[in-house]
């Protein structure tokens, strides 16, 4: 790796911590981002000559803070000074900064930065885009490609989302800058975990020629989950979330054929599964379970783990998976969970029992691709060809990706034989 590349990686790695601390100092996202950018430019000049600092994040915070303060003061000559309390945090910060970087002090900064991005007023896609831009530092172009929109459109969306957050932050409902209490911290962790899983699923649900543009989203979600875990090492649900994402992403190379068509779990070449990711996922899940505080991410990770442990599809422990889905239905009741459980029931007790479980979900899942896809597949297994065809046709009309539609068309072709 050449020197510039290596500095780039270091800056990327330090970004969440540095930006989060700068946001606490300046209480303004734009100013914090500007400060971080400027600090990065100086790093690119100074590090090749003087060598990288021992603690890059602390260096970036220190330099970014000074640069931004200078620019604020320069601007203040033309405009009115901001209220003094805005900068009160920075007075004695210089001496403390090294100590702050060591301890748990900045873990709440990173959590706050992520939490601000998942403001409930923002639609999910904007939360994701904002987190990828601000926390991960992905370029607007990269994010635009992942969401299949033009760069200009994404730029505009991000600007609007930031303005909305700035408004919210200056009003009553703003996220406070004091360290949160335990209850508040737990709530923030829950919201941030949900957002990370959204980021992951944006990447995971990609198919065909989108895969290349969206796969970084999966990696980014995993990276941020590992970061959260380093800051909050004893949170079983964060361990569960990281495990779930690792165990799912481990199958990435086996999920699509050369033509971009979906390969279902029981047809995947398990030799292509990433063993290091599976090992890490299983290790995290093991640690999480020791806490005896079950949660939805841990249960989903446990289901993914049973698939990962099965050397062949036939070796899958469906009975155990069924029990876990039962737990998940209690922890997180949702018709989609029941639909997934029906797949397990079809393995355990056959298509008829599964269909009986699926039919009552029609009211709530009538507009859901996977509902009609599974229903069609079960009807096909039962030899009810005409109804199966109708189910598949409805599924195709609801497919969200060409790969989904192509997969169902494969079933339809089978029916004609």
């Amino acid at each position, binding site marked *: *790796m050449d020197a510039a*590349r*290596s500095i780039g*990686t*270091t800056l*990327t*790695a*330090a970004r969440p911590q540095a930006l989060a601390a700068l946001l606490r100092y300046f209480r303004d996202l734009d100013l914090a981002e500007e400060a971080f950018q400027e600090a990065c430019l100086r790093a690119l000049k100074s590090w090749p000559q003087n060598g990288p600092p*021992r*603690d*890059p994040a602390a260096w970036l915070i220190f330099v970014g803070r000074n640069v931004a303060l200078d620019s604020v003061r320069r601007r203040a000559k033309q405009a009115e000074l901001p209220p003094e309390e805005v900068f009160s945090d920075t007075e004695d910060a210089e001496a403390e900064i090294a100590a702050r970087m*060591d301890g748990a002090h900045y873990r709440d900064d990173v959590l706050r930065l992520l939490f601000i991005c998942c403001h409930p007023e923002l639609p999910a896609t904007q939360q994701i885009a904002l987190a990828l831009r601000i926390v991960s530092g992905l370029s607007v172009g990269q994010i635009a490609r992942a969401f299949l929109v033009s760069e200009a459109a994404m730029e505009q969306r991000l600007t609007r989302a930031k303005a909305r957050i700035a408004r919210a932050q200056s009003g009553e409902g703003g996220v406070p800058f004091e360290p949160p209490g335990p209850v508040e911290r737990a709530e923030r962790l829950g919201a941030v975990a949900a957002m990370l899983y959204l980021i992951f699923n944006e990447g995971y649900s990609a198919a065909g020629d989108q895969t290349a543009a969206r796969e970084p989203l999966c*990696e980014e979600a995993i*990276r941020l989950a*590992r*970061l959260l*875990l*380093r800051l909050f*090492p*004893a949170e079983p649900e964060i*361990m569960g979330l*990281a495990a779930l994402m690792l165990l799912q992403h481990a199958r990435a190379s086996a999920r699509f054929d050369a033509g971009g068509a979906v390969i279902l779990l029981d047809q995947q070449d398990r030799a292509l599964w990433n063993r*290091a990711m599976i*090992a*890490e996922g299983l*290790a*995290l899940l093991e*640690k999480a379970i*020791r806490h005896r505080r079950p949660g939805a991410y841990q249960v989903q990770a446990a289901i993914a783990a049973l698939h990962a442990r099965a050397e062949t599809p036939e070796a899958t422990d469906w009975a155990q998976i069924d029990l876990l889905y039962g737990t998940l239905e209690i922890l997180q009741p949702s018709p989609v969970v029941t639909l997934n459980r029906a797949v397990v029931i079809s393995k355990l007790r056959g298509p008829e029992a599964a269909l009986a479980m699926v039919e009552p979900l029609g009211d709530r899942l009538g507009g859901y691709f996977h509902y009609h896809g599974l229903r069609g597949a079960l009807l096909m297994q039962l030899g009810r060809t005409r109804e199966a065809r109708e189910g598949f046709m409805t599924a195709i009309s609801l497919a969200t990706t060409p790969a989904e539609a192509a997969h169902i068309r494969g079933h339809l072709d089978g029916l004609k034989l």
Partner: protein
Amino acid sequence: MFYALLCYHQEDVVCAWTKEEDDAVMARLGIVHERLTAAGKLGPAARLLPTTAATTLRKDQDPPLVLDGPFAETKEQLLGFYILDCADLEEALGIARELGVANPGGCYEVRPVGLFLDGGARP
């Protein structure tokens, strides 16, 4: 003399490597590993999973306390190790330099081995 080469690096930096960057480092290291193996210098070696997967047992109390994460929060984390069979420290440092060219950044701690048990278990 056996030496342990303890590999420290900033984990968040290593985790931020792209797959291509990671593969490139491993390919460069692979060449050195092969040469060391051929020369009979390389003992067991391991790359460790991230410290987030670690659990620590504090045994200075009774009963021992099980904690999540690595034993200490450090700027650079223990990410792997080699066991090397070398004539002396100079040779061990030479190998460390060579590995360092293939995998720059972070540091290697060269530490003589006091007791070595080859229990025979293999992953």
